């Protein structure tokens, strides 16, 4: 062991970010993948909590329809890790509807691949 303790100085810098994310940590890996589709719940009544400006910004962006998590990150210019925390918080608050990507078991599904192939050919063929 050396007497070098970089952890301490880093810990001091963690205060502000934890305020912004309200101490939340990254959601489980699979909850918001890059291509999970997200939109807002249309029912305005179920909005009890006060949102942070960042959460409100994300929510506003989601309100026009479905976007992937990647697109939300692109439009908001938020780092993905931060965005996922905000989305997780909004989802817990009942603000969001999410659509998971095609499950992994179906990725080698002939029918799915045929549908992608047909779609590409119809568009460009």
């Amino acid at each position, binding site marked *: 062991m050396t007497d070098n303790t970089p952890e301490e100085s880093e810990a001091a810098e963690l205060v502000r970010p934890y305020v912004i994310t309200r101490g939340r940590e990254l959601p489980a890996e699979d909850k918001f993948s890059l291509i999970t589709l997200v939109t807002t719940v249309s029912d305005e009544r179920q909005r009890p909590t006060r949102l942070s400006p960042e959460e409100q910004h994300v929510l506003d962006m989601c309100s026009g329809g479905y*976007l992937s998590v*990647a*697109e939300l990150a692109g439009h908001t210019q938020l*780092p993905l*890790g931060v965005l996922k925390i905000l989305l997780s918080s909004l989802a817990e608050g009942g603000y969001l509807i999410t659509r*998971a990507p095609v499950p992994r078991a179906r990725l080698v599904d002939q029918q799915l*691949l045929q*549908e992608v192939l047909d779609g590409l050919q119809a568009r*460009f063929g």
Partner: protein
Amino acid sequence: MDSKRVLDEDAYVRGGEAQTAVKILVVGHFAVGKTTFIGTISEIPPLSTEEDMTRVAEAVDDLKGVRSKTTTTVAMDFGRLTISDHVVLYLFGTPGQQRFIQIWEDMARGALGALVLVDPERLADSFAVIDLIEQYGLSYAIAVNRFDHTPERTEAALREALDLLPDTPVVVMDARDENSSAQALITLVRYLQERAALEHA
């Protein structure tokens, strides 16, 4: 002043309430034409985002405009293509360097396959990318992006140089041309479909 920033209608996934998403990776070494390809195929203006490589707390410092960041971030480009009423395809352009391994974990997970863009003048630069793709067990096709004035190489020579399996598709394309780029993508998906058919036969 409206502080809301709602996007154009076209920015949203059409019929999103019935859609599920799939993704294909577009990989290749620096400046091989990944961004051009995605821009050519995508129905939305291509977007980019930064994947944070270290802890979230550090990434949040970015949000606050702190420039002395200790985290490593890397941009990735992506685009979108609505395939049908139930499937929307995302194309992710991914840097090929081994040091972006965290990105590769995220990108490779759940991808249908990968299109490997190759510059015929810089074949050796593609070795590392192909190694990574194989390491993650992704099926792929090679798309040779022909730049102006590049001499034609025979497919056999290219296959030998890249040490490809006999059934790996190789297609020559121009990433600036929509039809040419689309044919490369179609070649990949047809190959993926045929492989799936074989596995279930």
